[in-house]
């Protein structure tokens, strides 16, 4: 169909002393070339685990892929051997993490850390590697790159470090960039700059981006499509318009309502309650305990998927005709 990446029915669990934690319980999505997909959800919903599983970065005890496949250009990443996976990490698919202050090795120069990525994957001379590194630093907007290569991470501010991290991730010209909460640890103003940078990079280099975040503001700025995750499953997925202008799932609505807005007065409306215990997740819809429209059926059976149009899907019993009886409350 033209999907660069396809995640099918992914199940990931962790063995812990209290039992098995089901962190990801049947996640499906795909990523097309050149698009930005945002995965949104609160802490613990499984979004980070999903993205790290794509990179196979989850340590294998205690984590385990229990089911599902991740197809990248036809190959199933869950079945690759570790050496093959290493060939993909950093060169075809790259990942950047949340905290730029700790993402860089304090005892190595940033030049070393940037160049090591490309030296690992391509046969390239030191001179070429260096010029590539300089090119990358220019791309992400670090002035005076030649001199900066010799410096150490602690000599850079948070925002600049995140740029360096992005440069590191892009040096091998990957097709997919996974960004796990890339702006969470940054000031709002720096955040805006980094998001601009993402957009710019996407235009210039045609990279597909998977952006993990809990911040809807970030999503609104950069995402083409949005997947809303809750308790290990995607509950609603659509393009930006769908999600922001006609969200259907009560959780999505709750999220949007809880974002403070400058043009609104009155109290903040958080979503009551906390996410369910993933040791023994509920049979039915996991949002039942917190959902203002919960029905008996929600407790018993997991909602089937409904297609609202060919780009907006949702798992919620409220979409069923029989639910229209109480729909007047929505």
């Amino acid at each position: 169909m033209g999907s660069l990446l396809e995640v099918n029915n992914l199940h990931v669990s962790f063995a812990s002393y209290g039992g098995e934690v089901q962190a990801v319980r049947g996640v499906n999505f795909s990523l097309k070339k050149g698009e930005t997909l945002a995965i949104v959800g609160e802490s613990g919903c499984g979004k980070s685990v999903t993205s790290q599983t794509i990179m196979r970065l989850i340590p294998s005890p205690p984590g385990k892929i229990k089911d599902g496949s991740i197809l990248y250009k036809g190959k199933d990443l869950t079945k690759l051997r570790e050496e093959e996976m290493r060939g993909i990490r950093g060169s075809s698919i790259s990942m950047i993490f949340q905290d730029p202050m700790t993402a860089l090795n304090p005892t190595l120069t940033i030049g070393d850390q940037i160049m090591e990525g490309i030296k690992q994957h391509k046969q390239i001379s030191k001179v070429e590697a260096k010029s590539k590194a300089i090119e990358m630093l220019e791309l992400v907007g670090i002035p005076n790159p030649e001199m900066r290569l010799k410096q150490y991470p602690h000599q850079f501010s948070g925002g600049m470090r995140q740029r360096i991290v992005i440069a590191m991730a892009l040096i091998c010209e990957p097709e997919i960039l996974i960004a796990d909460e890339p702006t969470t640890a940054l000031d709002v103003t720096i955040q805006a700059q980094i998001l601009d940078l993402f957009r710019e990079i996407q235009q210039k280099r045609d990279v597909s981006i998977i952006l993990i975040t809990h911040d809807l503001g970030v999503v609104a700025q950069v995402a083409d499509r949005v997947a809303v995750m809750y308790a290990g499953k995607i509950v609603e997925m659509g393009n930006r318009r769908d999600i922001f202008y006609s969200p259907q799932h009560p959780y999505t609505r709750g999220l949007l309502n809880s974002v403070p807005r400058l043009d609104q007065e009155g109290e903040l409306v958080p979503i009551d309650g906390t996410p369910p215990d993933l040791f023994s997740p509920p049979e039915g819809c996991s949002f039942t305990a917190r959902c203002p429209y919960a029905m008996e059926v929600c407790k018993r059976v997991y909602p089937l998927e409904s297609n609202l149009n060919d780009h907006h899907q949702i798992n919620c019993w409220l979409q069923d005709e029989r639910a229209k009886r109480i729909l007047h409350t929505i």
Partner: protein
Amino acid sequence: MGLPQETLYEKKEDIALDEWFVPIEKKKGEAEAVVRPSLSYWQEAWRNLGKNKLALGALIFLILLIIMAIIGPILSPHSISEQKLINQNQPPSSEYWFGTDSLGRDVFSRTWYGARISLFVGIAAAVIDFLIGVAYGGLSGYKGGRVDHILMRIVEVLYGLPYLLIVILMSVVMGPGLGSIIIALSITGWVGMARIVRGQVLQIKNYEFILASKTFGAKTYRIIRKNLLPNTMGPIIVQMTLTVPSAIFAEAFLSFLGLGIQAPLTSWGVMADEGLSAILTGHWWRLFFPTLFISLTMFAFNVLGDGLQDALDPKLRGGK
């Protein structure tokens, strides 16, 4: 998306019955049930320690050791200094459970007597380190500023002094013996404790939960008891537990060199020194028992100290 539908069912109506499409009655607060009961700091620590079999074993060993140190010499029919030259250098037997030494003295009762001395030195050193260290470090940390600066410079210089060398020098100066060893150990040993205490005090001074407590109007005493103590005591207790074996080691070391405990007292170190030459004549038990107990005791304290460290560190809660 392609979520695999439950294609076993032809119609939705079979999975989700019509009558279920009614609102649920929810109990209030159900959504926020806390999963595990919370424990107090000490309860949590004790539980963690309990999981560590080795540390528990060490604790039991040490308790038994202390008991034996007290009753051991009494248990044996022979006194610690009674010399029966006829019986010299006897291997362990039913009469002399650990054998005899070159003067016909009972090794069994002497071993437990030595235990008293070694344990006494170890614990005394730990306690004195604690007292001096807490006073010094606490003052330095609490006062801050110039006072802290000066006190810490002094500590820095003292820290650079080779511990055992000073101890040896002290013993030379004061003459050997139990008192000098303890004094010598105390003079240099408190430095480590002072640093730790100061570090703790500095950390705690600014903790947000102290401020939070204050804003709730909690009295200072209560703050100290409920907040400061549980957090500071951890590393301090661990440090004390680990001071004991190093003091026992120092005493044994000195006695082995002839600088420590002198006759008529004895300690494990002295007995080891006496026992060393005996191995060439095959009297292995004279070296074996004192060295065995030195090692086991140090091992037990180290293991216990490690276990306490793991148990008392709140950051490790929920791990493993």
